[in-house]
């Protein structure tokens, strides 16, 4: 370990301890329960925010520490969440009355269908598939895990087939067929106040034309089985214009979203941690 690394580590530890004590004292004054822990957590949160921001300088050990901590805690968090919400919340109450009692969950008694089929029996199937999936850990019988994987892949493929066909294809096409010519009753207030949101048929009609032609020309731009020349080429050209406007708008929207997240973190550092702003 170099001398610089040792000095940086000592500085970070001293600052952390100082902040912990300061925030704990603040929490104690405010009458917070577990004030020592609260001070520790707020300090932790601030230091982790700074550790991630340190990546702007370059990849460094403090960033790597925060990154590995995040992966470990997230994995543990979602494992516990999955166990309690799915296994304890959904599976055990249908399989065992005694285990439901142990986990303080209400037992789901199920029902007999047609006098010969008990509905809760079906919940043994995912357990069997789950165990088959764990066979992946065996080098000799790992191939059995494909059965469970095949179930997930098949079910998801069937589900997505319908979902995408309906929402991304049929509904999008049907929503594109908007009225292009309307029973004209005036242009509204567009020219008087230059408002794009003005209620009037001019803005609505122009918007409908742009939507209809935009979708059509956008699709033509992505159609590569015919050469983009002549009228087809002009349509494709209009398609790319509309696409560029979309990319610009999406870019602006994403930037604003990220900036608002950054503002949130800066606010946390200056208000909740340092207490400089109110």
């Amino acid at each position, binding site marked *: 370990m170099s001398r610089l690394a040792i000095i940086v580590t000592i500085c970070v530890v001293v600052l952390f301890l100082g902040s912990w004590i300061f925030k704990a004292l603040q929490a104690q004054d405010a009458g917070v329960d577990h004030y020592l*822990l609260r001070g520790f*957590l707020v300090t932790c949160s601030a230091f*982790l*925010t700074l550790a*991630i921001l340190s990546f702007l300088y370059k990849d460094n050990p403090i960033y790597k520490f*925060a990154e590995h*901590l995040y*992966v470990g*805690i997230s*994995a*543990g*968090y979602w*494992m*516990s969440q*999955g166990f*309690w919400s*799915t*296994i304890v919340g*959904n599976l055990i109450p249908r399989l065992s009355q005694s285990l439901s009692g142990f*986990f*303080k969950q209400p037992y789901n008694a199920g029902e007999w269908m047609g006098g010969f089929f008990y509905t809760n029996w079906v*919940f043994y199937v*995912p357990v069997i*598939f789950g165990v088959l*999936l*764990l066979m*992946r*850990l065996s080098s000799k019988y790992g191939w059995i895990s*494909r*059965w*469970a*994987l*095949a*179930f997930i*892949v*098949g*079910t998801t*493929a*069937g589900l997505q*087939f319908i979902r995408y066909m309906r929402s*991304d*294809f049929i509904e999008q096409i049907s929503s594109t067929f908007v009225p292009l010519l309307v029973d004209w009753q005036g242009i509204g207030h567009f020219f008087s106040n230059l408002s794009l949101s003005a209620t009037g048929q001019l803005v609505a009609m122009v918007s409908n034309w742009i939507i*209809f032609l*935009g979708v059509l*020309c*956008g*699709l033509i*731009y992505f159609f590569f089985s015919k050469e983009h020349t002549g009228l087809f080429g002009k349509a494709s050209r209009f*398609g790319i214009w*509309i696409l560029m*406007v*979309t990319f*610009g*708008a999406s*870019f602006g929207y994403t*930037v*604003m979203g990220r900036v608002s997240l*950054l503002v*949130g*973190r800066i606010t946390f550092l200056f208000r909740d941690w340092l207490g400089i702003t109110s």
Partner: protein
Amino acid sequence: MKRQIPLVLVLIFGLFMVIQYFIPHESSEWIYEYLLDWITIIGVFALVLGIWSLFKVNYDKISQRKPDRGYSLVLLISLFATMFFGFFAKVDGSWGLHFSTADGLQSYMYRHAYEYIIRPIQSTIFSLLAFFIASAAYRAFRARNVLASLLLAAALIVMLRFNPYLGPLGDYISEAANWLLNVPNLAAKRAIVIGIGLGMVATALKVILGIERSYMGKG
């Protein structure tokens, strides 16, 4: 056994999920709901597999004394500590397997791991993109031709939308931004979404019919 049974399973369950949509009957919906429950339950077993894999990769790094083994140690300690506080909590003075009740999550540490560690790191990582995106925009945003100018103008209008210092001009920009998002943006996104939809339908069909088999891996 190794390749035929998975193909048959994919075909049966895939076709069922497609066909059940066209059978608006109680039994069909009943099976559909149970199949979705099954996927969630099997997903938890997949999580166990993922955790094991994470543990093994990092344990191997530590045992083989690789250069970055310190980070692997941090990862494993944080993983097991979170799992411990996720499974056990101190309720009425004694430790036990407790999680949530009508009062919410039992474990103080587990509850705060999300609020004070996962959420700050996650939002800071995402906010880092603001810097990189600004740097990329500085280099890429040049009004060299009509297309680049359209991109630049649309981005500027949308970014200026929430600016409180523009006065009355702000209202016009806000309306223009909303129009951009609701009309041309919608049109192009719809064209893209139709393409994605067709691609997804074709891929799902290839999987169900056994033409696409990459999910089985080799062997």
